[in-house]
């Protein structure tokens, strides 16, 4: 298991300018996980993709001493020993660690408000945006399209197993009941009801046509082939 945050990362000497700091408060390291088999662990995404696609949720699992099984270690102990109970917790809860080298990155940071400095951990799809108002906290912006493509790749490469049918069926049941609810409404104007029916119908169509990346696509027939 690769868990970040061991001893910090080497920072190249930056000469007279000194090191550069991201203008944000330090945070705890984290690993990326997938809560396999749990409701909400797969969703349909569109941003940055050729069409609606089922993708696994990839979530942060914070590694901070005193939480999620993380222990404070003795000097000289290997950092990985801090995570002994964490591994057990992940295993027991059937949480899959998403091993993706280079996705979790860290950089030196300094909170412009408090001066607290340290490491800021983020995904490589994110960037820290300094606030225009110096009294406000920095924002972290994410490139959702790039992250979605990476999530699709995880499925294609088999890093994350296919979802259980019940997760997909439960999500469809919600959409069908939303459509039925919209159709059965008598307490709103006809045009409002029609718009609601159309929206619910559209959501169901997207659901039924969304690409399932765990199912290999059949090769397209060549034009003119017999």
């Amino acid at each position, binding site marked *: 298991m690769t868990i970040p945050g061991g001893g910090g990362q080497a920072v190249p000497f930056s000469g007279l300018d000194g090191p550069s700091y991201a203008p944000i408060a330090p945070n705890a390291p984290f690993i990326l996980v997938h809560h396999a088999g749990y409701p909400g662990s797969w969703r349909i995404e569109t941003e940055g993709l050729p069409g609606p696609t089922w993708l696994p949720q990839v*979530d*942060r699992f914070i590694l901070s001493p005193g*939480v999620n099984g993380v222990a404070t270690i003795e000097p000289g102990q290997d950092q990985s020993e801090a995570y002994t109970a964490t591994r057990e917790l992940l295993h027991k809860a059937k949480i899959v660690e998403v091993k993706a080298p280079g996705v979790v990155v860290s950089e030196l940071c300094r909170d412009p408000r408090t001066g607290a400095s340290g490491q800021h951990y983020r995904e490589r799809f994110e960037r820290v945006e300094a606030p225009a108002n110096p009294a406000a906290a920095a924002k972290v912006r994410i490139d959702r399209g790039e992250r979605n493509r990476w999530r699709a790749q995880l499925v294609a490469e088999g890093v994350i197993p296919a979802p259980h049918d019940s997760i997909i069926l439960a999500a469809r049941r919600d959409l069908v009941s939303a459509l039925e609810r919209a159709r059965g409404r008598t307490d709103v104007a006809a045009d409002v009801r029609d718009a609601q029916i159309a929206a619910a119908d559209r959501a169901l169509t997207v659901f039924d046509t969304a690409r399932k990346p765990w199912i290999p696509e059949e090769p397209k027939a060549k034009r003119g082939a017999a």
Partner: protein
Amino acid sequence: MTAINAPATQAQTVSDWGYSAAFLQPVLLQELAERLNPVVAGLLPKVGDVAGSGSNTLRRRQVGGIGYSTYMAAMATEVAAGSASGFTSTYSDITIGRYHLAYEEAAQRAIVQQDGLTIEALASATVDSYLRTLRRLMCSSATGISTAKGTSGAALDTDDWFALVAAFEETEGYEGSAIAILHPEQLTDLRTSLRSYTGFQFPEPTEGQQSLGSAMGLGMGGSLLGIQIFKSVDVNSSGGDHVGFAFAPGVFGFATGDTSRVPVPMGAEPVALPEWGLLLTKSFAGATTVNRVDANAFVGVGRVNAAVLPQFRVLSIND
């Protein structure tokens, strides 16, 4: 000597004889900071102490398949032999970690300061920092909750809230009390959705708005459909989403290490708050004239698992 031309003005004399500002004594205003105390708010009870246990981990045993979890078997005949039942076991852990905060002050500042922010005042402020640390640990623990509600990449809306309520109510054994801790932006999104939720008829949107107060107390954000809502900027983010969470009371708990057991040498003037796992010590370095206070906390936050009490992450866009 500075030449003061007639007429003598404040602008000319201020640099030699005046002040650029006069301080209003004894006022020292503290900047705005979220003061949600998860312990006082009843969100995070203390569940135990590892002192003298030989371990940094407190384990809670959990049992299933007995009592209300099971039925008695109907017997086919008067003399049929009944078979004995088993049960299930699991556990949840709280591992304590060490947290630290220190302040230093040089003797010369102690001599000349007139702001009242003494090293002792800074030491007493560490207790609030400890409580904030507990809050952050609680939010971090929530990242391990497996079931997610809300919609990743979309604003939190009324439909999500209905789905969250349904998730609680469809959990067998749920007894009707639920708490949510949301990022303030999630609360804003929820309020925005309430304003335009088509299904509501007057006065429902108004009542919904009124039940979501923005300042009902320290961190209390009101309640909606039976879920008490608190807000905190310590709620984590992940993949462009806020990771709020909702849970039945009792899901979270914190454990400490009794700091009254720590032998502190003479002169350190220790202040131990053993029930919080907190130890404050002082030191003075004569060579550098530096006074220092160190606050060390030995504390951890954990969750019981979802088989015991319902708990959900509440995802919505962080934008």
